[in-house]
């Protein structure tokens, strides 16, 4: 299976009143078709921005994006529109991402209508097919999003994303607002669809047990920068970056007899606005040394297929 997406030194900065905000900085990775890259990290670390930039829903500030071998970084508006057929997104927030004035059938049909490739009858057929596929009973076709619960609303989002039969989907926290049972159903659904259609996913979440379950590789971000990337199992077995270690130890375990030593991460978050040349994690890192305060660490392959950006990684982990 070949590589479907490659991202090289991708950056997205926003202008704010206090200066340039580095939402995503120098992120690089590639994904093979049919695989899932999980993206985890603190809220505000740039996960959604990364997803949107990769899809060209927002323009990158720097770096390159290759989709199916083609450089899509600077394509025309028209080509960008065509890209929507192959690249889709399931939004984080099923409450606000759906137009409240459209009913379920119209919401799912909406992306199809922009491409004007199907007549009314065909669109209706596809809509029902999608509703079946995501397990949304057809009798909800004329309901409005506010009349439905979170699980069904999220299914609308998934049906919408699938309607154009894309190859690649950014799933931006698709299960965060759902209870564990519906969450498990949606995760199984996404996995089944992946298998049937050889879909490729970027799966953004902060639920670590979910990301472990669904991902082949995991990318950990911190204040816009990537701090660690490796195969999913490896990350949980051998987290190397101090932030990842703190993250994994903070997972609440659903067992009241579980005694666990938590690595507490204290201290303030670094600001993503005009960040100085230093490790983004330095203010909360228990292992920080002088070099961490004057230079941003490079992103290195510390072990085979295991990338980390930390000056002291080898010392900390006795490598």
């Amino acid at each position, binding site marked *: 299976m070949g590589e479907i997406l490659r991202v090289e030194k991708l950056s997205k900065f926003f202008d704010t009143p206090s200066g340039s905000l580095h939402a995503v900085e120098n992120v690089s990775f590639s994904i093979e078709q049919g695989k899932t890259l999980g993206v985890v990290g603190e809220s505000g670390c740039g996960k959604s921005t990364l997803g949107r930039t990769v899809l060209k829903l927002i323009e990158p500030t720097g770096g390159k994006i290759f989709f199916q071998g083609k450089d899509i970084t600077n394509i025309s508006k028209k080509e960008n529109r065509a890209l929507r057929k192959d690249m889709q997104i399931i939004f984080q927030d099923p409450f606000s991402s759906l137009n409240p004035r459209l009913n379920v059938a119209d919401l799912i049909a909406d992306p199809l209508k922009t491409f004007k490739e199907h007549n009314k009858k065909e669109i209706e057929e596809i809509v029902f097919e999608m509703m079946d596929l995501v397990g949304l009973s057809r009798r909800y076709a004329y309901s409005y999003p506010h009349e439905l619960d979170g699980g069904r609303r999220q299914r609308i989002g998934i049906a919408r994303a699938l309607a154009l039969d894309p190859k690649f989907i950014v799933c931006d926290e698709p299960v965060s607002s759902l209870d564990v049972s519906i969450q498990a*159903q949606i995760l199984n659904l996404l996995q089944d669809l992946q298998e049937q259609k050889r879909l490729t996913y970027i799966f953004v979440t902060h639920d670590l047990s979910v990301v472990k379950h669904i991902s082949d590789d995991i990318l950990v971000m911190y204040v816009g920068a990537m701090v660690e990337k490796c195969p999913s199992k490896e990350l949980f077995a051998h987290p190397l970056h101090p932030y990842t270690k703190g993250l994994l130890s903070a997972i609440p375990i*659903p067992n009241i007899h579980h005694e666990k030593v938590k690595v507490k991460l204290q201290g303030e978050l670094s600001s993503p606005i005009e960040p100085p040349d230093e490790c983004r994690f330095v203010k909360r890192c228990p292992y920080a040394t002088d070099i961490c305060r004057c230079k941003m660490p490079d992103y290195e392959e510390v072990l085979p297929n295991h990338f980390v950006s930390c000056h002291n990684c080898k010392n900390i982990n006795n490598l």
Partner: protein
Amino acid sequence: MSLLEIKNLTVEYVLRKSVVHAVNNISLNVDAGKTLGLVGETGAGKTTTALSIMGLLPHPPAKVQSGEILFEGQDLLKMKEHDLENIRGNKISMIFQDPMTALNPVLTVGEQIAETFHLHGNYSRAEAEKESLKMLEMVGIRPERSTEYPHQFSGGMKQRVVIAMALACKPQLLIADEPTTALDVTIQAQVLELMNDLKVTFNTAMLLITHDLGIVAETCDDVAIIYAGQLVEYGSIEQIFDNPLHPYTIGLFGSIPSLDEDVERLKPIPGLMPDPANLPVGCKFCTRCSRAVKQCEEAEPEYLEVEPGHFVRCNRIGGTDNG
């Protein structure tokens, strides 16, 4: 007497073509200094319960059909809007599931938190501003970002602002509707600790709505499991985690992806919650339950106290799957 006592609360949404039975005859208690976890499927009626306490149900279509909500012995449902407004924000505050409903898009986040301190905490404007910066830092947001507007913040950061506002007035009862769903676990740990401090320092009672059983394990004293608007199981944290008895509760524990084991596929409870406008006559869970027998379809199971403080609504407690 508990600080909050909900007695036989029933709430419906009366729509043009149907009536949604969102909350059916629910009774709950929350004591000062204690945390009650309210766990249940999407659409189970958790937010509706919370909004009833706050007196913030949308009328129409919402209609409280029966019940009492006693706060310090006074029925909130009978209270005048003016008195309720006083209680809201001073004695009871709520962290909303959707942070944007609580944020004003045209005020900076700093201004909004300062406003809460000023209105509810008897701080002067200048003090309130100072306090608001401290509070922002407590929830992990750099103070220099206080001059930004909500739309410039990510979802999780907005949620932290809302949390800061809710904690600012040091309420006696804090209702938190999925407060940390959008946060990463390290910040979540900080926020939960902050809420815990509040509990210890001010003896705050908490109603915590969440579907994260890990958070429940770490923060709650009691747990109520709600399904299709009804309580199906209610007990202390030990009773629910060590001896879950309702098949729905057992199914919930079985659905969580494990960190220790690798499984190809998760085992969710099959099916979806029944349409709350069209609930089954018998046990509301019978359409999805692996133990269901004919009796379950025909008559609603009784809500029984199986051991002191541990309530279960099921005909086949301890039963086995049928086929």
